[in-house]
């Protein structure tokens, strides 16, 4: 057993596994799932223009996100990650079963905090509100990204690189968490058996996260494991039927409006508050924060 855990694994194998899980899963699970969801919408008479245009907007925001991610990838990830890895890092870890699993779990934990921060500071919400602004809940919503969604995770994954994990492994793990997360955006699956719902983030838990019902705000930030929410006090089970969307609805499927509405709302808020200090605080305080003088 221990031999299996610490046996050195070749890079080419790791890259191949992650290729199967991260890249090919789009073909063998996400796309078929989305088709089934569309058929379901047809059956329950919800397959209307709004769902279609919403999905198209989702895919377009994803395209914009990928372009930003790509530019950042060339600038930040390859340079900063490796530089950190070689200059400010604990001893470098070998590639084996244990280090890979620990890296995925750390990436998942980083995802939790990244996600929590995006909900709880103004600047984070300006980009993450894009993802939450859809009033539907299907796999295409998972691809609805905001303009700065690629930036914040870097802050949370750099510490993993500094702990001695290979930057490429960290990156692959992050994408794996994201892909797992993608699969949760569905109404088709009700609830899993209790032990699974206890440990893992599930569609049920994530529906709660997307709820605009008051008790569902800022809950269930998890990527793969819901136990992070249970440990850190942000867990909420799905009881009341979820109303999807944000408290101040967007009411538009224009991809440009969808992509930039968070930033424009943030700028409007900065303009509206008085004093430099308050203007700065808008960026770092929770999105529902208002200065005291008001």
């Amino acid at each position, binding site marked *: 057993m*221990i031999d299996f*855990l*610490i*046996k*050195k694994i*070749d*890079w*080419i194998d790791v890259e*191949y596994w992650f290729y199967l899980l991260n890249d090919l899963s789009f073909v063998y699970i996400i796309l078929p799932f989305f088709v089934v969801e569309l058929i379901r919408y047809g059956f329950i008479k919800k397959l209307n223009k709004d769902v279609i245009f919403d999905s198209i907007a989702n895919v377009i925001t994803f395209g914009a996100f990928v372009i930003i991610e790509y530019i950042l990838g060339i600038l930040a990830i390859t340079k900063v990650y490796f530089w950190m890895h070689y200059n400010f890092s*604990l*001893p470098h*870890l*070998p590639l*084996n079963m*244990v*280090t890979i699993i*620990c*890296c995925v*779990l*750390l990436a998942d*934990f980083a995802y939790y*905090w990244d996600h929590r921060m995006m909900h709880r500071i103004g600047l984070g919400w300006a980009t993450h509100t894009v993802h939450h602004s859809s009033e539907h809940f299907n796999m295409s919503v998972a691809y609805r990204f905001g303009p700065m969604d690629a930036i914040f995770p870097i802050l949370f994954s750099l*510490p993993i690189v500094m*702990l*001695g*994990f290979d930057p490429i492994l960290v990156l692959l793990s992050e994408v794996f968490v994201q892909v797992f997360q993608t699969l949760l955006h569905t109404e088709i699956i009700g609830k899993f058996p209790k032990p699974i719902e206890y440990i893992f983030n599930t569609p049920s838990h994530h529906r709660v996260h997307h709820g605009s019902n008051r008790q569902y705000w800022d809950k269930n930030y998890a990527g793969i494991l819901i136990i*992070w929410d249970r*440990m*850190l*006090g942000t867990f909420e089970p799905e009881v009341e039927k979820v109303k999807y969307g944000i408290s101040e609805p967007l009411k538009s499927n224009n991809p440009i409006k969808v992509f930039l509405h968070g930033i424009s709302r943030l700028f409007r808020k900065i303009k509206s508050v008085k004093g430099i200090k308050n203007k700065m605080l808008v960026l770092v305080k929770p999105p529902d924060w208002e200065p005291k003088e008001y």
Partner: protein
Amino acid sequence: MKNSKLLFISILIIAVLAGTAHLFAGIESTGDTETPVFVPSPAIQEEEEQVQRQPETQQQKTNWELLEGKWEVMYKSDDFTGSIVYRISKDKNSMNAYTVKYIDENGDSLNSEKLVLIVKSFSGKSGKGTYKLEYEGKAYDIPCKVKMTDPNHFELSYSYYDYSDKETWTRITE
């Protein structure tokens, strides 16, 4: 939940996960499975051979002698055009090939001693082993085959996923 408690739990989680990874990394370095890059002294070699003086090993030993010596391989790729001289010698239970020098197309040479090939079994005609390749800064251990075409040539072939290649090793006497 208080911020201090959040911080405490988070640091604990990170410490456990990173600690586990480093702990298991430590185990690996003590039970090193990689063949160290050194040639055993004749005394150790003799002792080793006494331990495993079985008919089959004996047979293999004579077969293995066919691989012993210096070999040269020509390369022509984007990375490197020229030839590499290798030395194959006997290790505990295998034949190991080490680089001796790189000679580029202009005839400039660079000395080097690096373990690149471990032949684990060899019948006298063909054998199997591990080829150590470096690609984009990462090291790979790739299963490979060795096939003797005549006493002065053998073919080293390997394939990994969609990549495969074949090298011809030619015996040299210097």
